[in-house]
């Protein structure tokens, strides 16, 4: 969350000089190639990507690394980390490592689903708002600003209280509360592209509105869409964990949030079982940090002023 509220100021000023070349194939390749090259030579981005790949692999391989149902109760309760249970066991005898591995599946899936869906809606609303302007812009901007202003977590709690519990509810609720920020950032960027000559040319040649929006404008703001997506994924993972921790998510599933919910419910703090609480929280933080690092790198690549000048 801390980074998402700082990105708008950083990204709205970003302008990539290579993105104004009018011919589509050349434009796509130049902008894309420069960006990928920038990512692959940036230490922060590589660091973040490496962490993400490791977590994705662990999530994929969870059934192999920790076979069986991770929430089954076992005979060995509240054991500190040891050779048999690398991360210890809970007060119900579940293996903490298995819970964390399996939890990454739900957390990453929900986080990325929410991130992609929220960014998609944000793109739709933001670009439509900038492209059509006038009354449509007024209405869509009003809607965006209302959703931005309503405090997210209380709204989350109220929605979750009334909707029937389940994994779909969690995703829907998180998307409802999460799309507005991206819509606002993407609108302001699309607005500056709207006045460019190549958009005017496309309008004159009679291209369809959706084609101009998604084939002309969207590819030219790829880097901002990217950093918005990263912000939304961070939001998704964090907010899911928060919702699950409050017991308002899907308490039957295994995710980092539910792990912490059960740990707190079973009084892991009071009994001193710190090892039950540590892994899931650290996992959330490390993934969010990795995403933030990539985001930071995207900012640096697209906004040269933020780059630290080389010494000497």
């Amino acid at each position, binding site marked *: *969350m*801390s*980074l998402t*509220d*700082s990105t708008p*100021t*950083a990204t709205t*000023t970003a302008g990539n000089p290579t993105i104004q070349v009018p011919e589509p194939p050349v434009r796509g390749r130049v902008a894309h190639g420069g960006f990928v090259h920038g990512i692959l030579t940036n230490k922060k981005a590589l660091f973040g990507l490496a962490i993400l790949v490791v977590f994705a692999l662990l999530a994929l391989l969870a059934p192999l690394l920790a076979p069986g149902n991770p929430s089954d109760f076992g005979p060995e309760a509240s054991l500190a980390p040891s050779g048999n249970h690398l991360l210890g066991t809970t007060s119900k005898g579940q293996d903490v490592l298995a819970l964390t591995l399996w939890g990454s599946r739900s957390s990453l899936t929900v986080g990325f689903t929410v991130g992609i869906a929220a960014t998609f809606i944000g793109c739709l609303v933001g670009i439509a708002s900038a492209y059509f302007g006038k009354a449509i812009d007024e209405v869509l901007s*009003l809607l965006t*600003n*209302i959703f*931005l*202003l*309503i*405090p*997210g*977590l*209380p*709204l*989350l*709690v*109220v*929605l*979750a*209280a*009334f*909707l*029937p519990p389940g994994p779909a509810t969690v995703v829907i609720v998180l998307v409802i509360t999460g799309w507005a920020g991206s819509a606002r950032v993407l609108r302001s960027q699309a607005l500056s592209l709207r006045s460019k000559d190549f958009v005017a040319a496309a309008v004159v040649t009679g291209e369809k509105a959706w084609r101009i929006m998604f084939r002309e404008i969207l590819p030219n703001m790829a880097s901002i869409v990217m950093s918005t997506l990263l912000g939304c994924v*961070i939001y998704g993972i*964090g907010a899911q*964990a*928060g919702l699950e*921790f*409050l*017991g*308002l998510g899907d308490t039957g599933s295994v995710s980092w949030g539910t792990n*912490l919910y059960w740990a*707190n419910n079973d009084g892991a*703090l*009071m009994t*001193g079982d*710190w090892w039950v*609480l540590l892994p*899931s*929280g650290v996992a*959330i*933080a*490390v993934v*969010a*940090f990795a995403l*933030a*690092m990539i985001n*930071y790198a995207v900012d640096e690549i697209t906004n040269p*002023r*933020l780059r*630290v*000048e080389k*010494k000497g």
Partner: protein
Amino acid sequence: MVFLLRRLGFYVIAFWACITLNFFLPRLMPGDPVSRMFSQVQSQMRPDQVDALRRLFGLDDRPLWEQYIAYIGKIFRGDMGISLSRFPSPVSEVIGSQIGWTLLLGGTSLIIAVILGNFLGVLAAWRRGKFLDSVFPPLLIFVGSFPYFWLAMAALYLFGITLGWLPLSHAFSTGLSPSFSLKYIGDVAAHLILPALTIVLVSIGGWMLGMRNTMIATTAEDYITMARAKGLRPARIMFQYAARNAMLPSVTSFGMSLGFVVGGALLTETVFAYPGIGYQLLTSVQALDYPLTQGIFLTITAAVLAANFLVDIIYVRLDPRVRVS
């Protein structure tokens, strides 16, 4: 003036949207949350109270638009129904008795985070690439990556349980009654440290980074070069010239971040069983006390909207460009 009126109009519309959402949520939801709520409390209520509640949640036969108008009328008279979990107190009374704690916790941590974060941001931008600039931003992003509630639990475990320095939960010790004595105020302050610390830790990184980035853009402006050429003291240039202008985006995000702080306070209050309205919101959801849930949601929204309007007024004073256009 036109600007402020426009903003005021926007806040009114936003508040109306929230009331509408509140009105339609229990009426359009699949399943029947309201009957579930009734089944557990019906025995202890008078028939007319049950009737009033049924109306509040749309379990009557009037047409929808008539219910809607009646609902809005009730909200503006401050009548949000009767709390079920704290029967027979009205919702407004329950909220009134607890909102002070949230204001204390949220206000204290927000002010500390904003002042400290912005100050660090100014320093980091001023000394680009030096220690503060290279170590703090990544470190604070990392700390900010931890979920609010997890940091709260970690702080609770470390300082409360293991070291035993600070109290574990609630806003003041049991047995102490609220008074203006030194003992009571000290006790409240001791209970405030841990929850406030966690909110500050998580939110300070965003402030620092935002300020740093705008400061970097500002220091590239001509008038800063001019100030340097005039031979002004660096501290004067940094705070009186650069930081004053770089503050503007921070003022805007101050309003925005109020929502985050309320959310953060909700999670933190839950961990520390701090008796604010965030904690009460969660308890009301668990107790299926829908009138209280909705009342708290409306109150929080109204507070955030009002605070944002205040920020707008301040912004007009700070930035003359808004007044002209």
